[in-house]
């Protein structure tokens, strides 16, 4: 049993965990034809149920999943697994119908029905079911109340509310001005921009994957892999000092993790050129600044010439540049993660003198 727990603890390491999430997305998209069966979907839910049921026998795991405010996230995991699979299944079903020339299921159901009684009764039943769930949940689980607020005692770990834990996880890789202000701002702007930069006229009002491959894959990457899976990571796998702990691991306050992160400037000046760091911070960080400018400024232009040429033609220049900027900003997180994991890179540009660290 300890051996199996050990495997799960190892797999839950942020690096492996993130890689597995990306692989799961690739599998979902690539093998969508074979997962589009009820047996797979309900089987997956069964596997998760089994994992949580058996895992619940472990005291450390039980402690973290039964913490009252974490219960909704356990629910979120199940709901996400179900609905991601379900929407994919619906998409595959429709894609098969479209390939046969039958049109999506929703088109076959475009005739009108009376709102009374067909819709109002559905609403009434949903409302009653939702009320029952909420009342039972409220009776079974008391709302948490800890010790009175005390500014002299800092709990360890101090966690933000659960829906912001993806952002708090980003703080491992970025400074607060990026992880807490700029990137969340760009998420909001990016979400609002979606309908204005997506010029694909197909797939409006029905489930489909084949007609919107890139859009759906990118959205699933942002929503499931980056946003939701980092929330799960931040909730269940981050303990004291924001150190990583496996799901079956005891939250040891004294766990030590060596932080040997190095700035790009040191890699460039000290290790590559064998010189001391320049005293002028602009000169010191010039390699990083050039890299960032290339990433934000030159890369979109380069991509427009070769790899993304079709998109420039399809979207037109203004839409293309907005899209590619938002895309690169989204990819900045996994890129910084990889740089940290492979090179122990702390900052690409590190100017603590003016709080400007990237």
């Amino acid at each position, binding site marked *: 049993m300890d051996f199996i727990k050990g495997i799960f603890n190892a797999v839950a390491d942020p690096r492996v965990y993130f890689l597995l999430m990306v692989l799961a997305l690739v599998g979902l998209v690539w093998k969508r034809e074979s997962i589009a069966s009820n047996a797979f979907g309900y089987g997956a839910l069964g596997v998760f149920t089994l994992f949580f049921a058996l895992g619940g026998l472990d005291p450390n795991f039980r402690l973290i999943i039964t913490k009252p405010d974490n219960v909704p996230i356990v*629910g979120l995991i199940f709901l996400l697994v179900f609905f991601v699979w379900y929407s994919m299944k619906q*998409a595959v079903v429709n894609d098969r119908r479209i390939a046969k020339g039958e049109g999506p299921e929703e088109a076959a*159901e475009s005739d009108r029905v009376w709102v*009374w*009684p067909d819709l109002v009764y559905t609403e009434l039943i949903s409302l009653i079911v939702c009320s029952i769930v909420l009342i039972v949940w409220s009776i079974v689980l008391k709302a948490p109340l800890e010790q009175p607020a005390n500014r002299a005692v*800092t709990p360890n770990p101090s966690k933000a509310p659960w829906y912001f834990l993806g952002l708090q996880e980003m703080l491992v890789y970025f400074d607060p001005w990026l992880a807490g202000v700029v990137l969340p701002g760009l998420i909001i702007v990016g979400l609002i921009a979606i309908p204005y930069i997506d010029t694909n006229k197909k797939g409006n009002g029905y489930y489909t994957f084949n007609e919107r491959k890139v859009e759906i894959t990118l959205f699933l990457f942002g929503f499931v892999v980056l946003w939701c899976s980092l929330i799960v990571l931040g909730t269940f796998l981050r303990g004291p000092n924001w150190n990583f702990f496996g799901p079956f691991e005891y939250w040891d306050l004294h766990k030590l993790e060596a932080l040997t992160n190095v700035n790009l400037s040191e890699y460039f000046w000290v290790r590559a050129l064998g010189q001391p760091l320049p005293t002028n911070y602009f000169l010191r960080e010039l390699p990083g600044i050039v890299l960032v400018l290339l990433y934000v400024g030159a890369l979109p232009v380069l991509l427009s010439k070769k790899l993304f040429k079709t998109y420039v033609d399809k979207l037109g220049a203004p839409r293309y540049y907005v899209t590619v900027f938002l895309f690169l900003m989204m990819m900045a997180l996994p890129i910084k993660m990889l740089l940290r994991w492979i090179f122990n890179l702390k900052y690409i540009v590190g100017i603590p003198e003016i709080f400007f660290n990237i």
Partner: protein
Amino acid sequence: MATETKTIRPQESPATRFWNWLTETQVWKSVFRHERPNTDRNRVLVMLSNIFLHLHPVRIRKSGVKLRYTWCMGGLSFFLFLSLTFTGLLLMFYYRPTLEYAYNDIVGLREHVPLGIMREMHRWGAHAMVITVWLHMFRVFMTGSYKPPREFNWSVGVIMLVLTLLLSFTGYLLPWDQLAIWAITVGSNMARATPFLGHEGPGAALLALGDVKLIHAADDARFALLGGTFVGEGALLRFYVLHCVGLPLGIAVLMAVHFWRVRKDGGISGPM
């Protein structure tokens, strides 16, 4: 001899007879200005003459009433909002947003109300609403329902998502326990790193007149959020007012716009 036609009245249950009697009374007819909705005409009238039901169209695409298509997540978000408004209103009777009383009032709610579940319903309802809003957006994305002519309504929805998160965030502070102030401390610490507007944000040092810093701990973005340099009395009052009045009003207005636009943009989405 003429044959007599015999009419046989079907046996009606007492409940049906009572229902038939009730819907014919003057009081009932004064409230509902239409007959029982058992003919097409009355099914139209019931939707048109009732202010709560008139948010709906009279007829709707068949796919639009299927859980398979909608998952009912938007409707549940709205219902959870109503439920949160109601439970929140009850909680406001017993809660005073001051350092002296806030925590004790919550303890009082827990200890002195037999079988009380209002705080639980409010807290779990809030968590559930965050999840239903996310799943609603996910469904809208997966069905491509944000595409023209519904672009603007998607944008309104994104703002409502932000307001939902802010509502939950401001409510998190109110119990005034360790969980509350430290979660808000972690969350609001981000604001001091706001570029130019936070005292530890990039560029803030540039905003200075000679040696006088224009952006410092007592006037930056975080100060505006907390009404102080730390999570204290000012923050509690600010979050309380935003949580109970400001944000709900904002989201209610946007909900009106959102529902109105669902209708005006052609009802629930479906293949063109």
